[in-house]
């Protein structure tokens, strides 16, 4: 079963209503980085990434919202690539944050960010991911 880690309520809603079964961890007050760190916890527990943690061109110090889909697998299975990706992604996110923190956005802009973040996930319903 897939696992969504997100701080975007639109992504949460999408996955709860999705035709496929998705478990959701919703970090209501979490930051972009919090989502990546929680993702890493799960990767260290043997989950495999389904989506790229840095998807979207909006830089990690721009958008407050992040959603990552993962999938449980047995601990021994090869998840080297997931470990590498999440580590690189956290490094990259921190690099941007060091430059400058995420601005305080108005409501309308936050909604746009959520919509864009959600748009990265919607193909999940249309395709098979094995």
């Amino acid at each position, binding site marked *: 079963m897939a696992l969504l880690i997100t701080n975007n309520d639109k992504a949460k809603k999408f996955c709860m209503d999705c035709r496929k079964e998705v478990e959701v961890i919703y970090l209501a007050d979490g930051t972009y980085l919090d989502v990546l760190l929680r993702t890493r916890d799960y990767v260290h527990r043997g989950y495999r*990434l*389904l*989506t*790229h943690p*840095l*998807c*979207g*061109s*909006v*830089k990690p110090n*721009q*958008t407050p919202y992040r959603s990552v*889909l993962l999938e449980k697998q047995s601990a021994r299975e090869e998840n080297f*690539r997931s470990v590498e*990706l999440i580590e*690189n*992604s956290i*490094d*990259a996110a921190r*690099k*941007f944050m*060091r*430059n*400058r923190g995420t*601005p305080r*956005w*108005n409501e*309308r*802009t936050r909604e*746009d*960010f959520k*919509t*864009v973040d959600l*748009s*990265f*996930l*919607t*193909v*999940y319903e249309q*395709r098979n*991911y*094995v």
Partner: protein
Amino acid sequence: MKLELGRIKIHDVQFGPETKVEKGVLYVNKEEIEKLVLEDERLIGAQVELARPGESVRIAPVKDVLEPRVKVSGGGGIFPGMISKVKEVGSGRTHALVGAAVVTCGKIVGFQEGIIDMSGPAAAYTPFSATNNVCVVIEPQEGLETHDYEAAGRMAGLKVASYVGEAGRNVEPDEVVVYETKPLQEQIAQYPDLPKVGYIHMLQSQGLLHDTYYYGVDAKQFIPTFMYPTEIMDGAIISGNCVAPCDKVTTFHHLNNPVIEDLYKRHGKDLNFIGVILTNENVFLADKERSSDMVAKLAEFMGLDGVLITEEGYGNPDTDLMMNCKKVSQKGIDVVLITDEFPGRDGKSQSLADAVNEADALVSCGQGNLIIEFPPMEKIIGTLDYVETMIGGYEGSLRPDGSIEAELQIIIASTIANGYNRLAARGY
């Protein structure tokens, strides 16, 4: 497939009662353009302004830039699947108004797009400070949904560029350049002793504001395919991407893809340019796996000896870039990558978000984190309201006098990762 590209050189743009080209001057009818844009009921405002090289003008926030072109003969029309009916393009004759550009601008969402300065220090970083720009400032209906607004803005640019391009239909071009790529076997036979080279063109396709279209199809919905290089010159690929100004591949850049142009320049001399493999940049790792497998398969099937690969964007696409590089290299094909860099404010961090050992030949298009200052401009086309929320901008970026301090990222196409510019980065 053979295309004659007639280049009509434009050195000035003016308003006039009729949209036409005369002695290298492009005249545009303001009212007709505005009426054309407002045919779309999602938009309630359209204002046309002109910007010429060297003027004290700042354009912001920019959505897309397009070169006006018209299909003169050979079947199909410009921007197939978007403006013209879906029909194969890339053959016959096309006219381009070289030195002119259509720039769409205005608020799309609160956090993206970028700046073009027509003069001053920032002008050196964008190719559009050197073009004569017909700027269309659009305004949406109140409460228009983000997807709809993006689509309306995208269509407005395509419509205006086609409309302006029509003015070149019956003008004698200053020069005609002929590009030709034959079907695979014939192309190989034409220069049997030269190394066979392909171009792997990665299209941004992650989601809303991150999409690209090929004959009207959203690139995330296709699987990697072969394209004749001349198809792109007739607008087979258009940009729906408007996030991250610095490495955005505008529709202008698709029409004028520099890798394709430079490969043609050496075609028949030190290489045999076989064609283009189009691929996408997806969010799901399984999609990346499938696409990169297919890219490598196509490269092998075409019998290529070497490929150039370009990407659009930073972060997620770096992974596609590296997967393509690795898998194509494993087929025994030489690979060169072209990309831009984001090594952080001090330039000391890793430039890319992913790396493989096979990526041993890389061309840099500069680093986007550099801070630059640009002085105030006398005229603003669009609005500076969003400067601080653009990528590359930050709180305090816009000073009261109208000058700006921001990361290079904020300037349209400043570090574009297909090698269009001369900007590069090196290790100090």
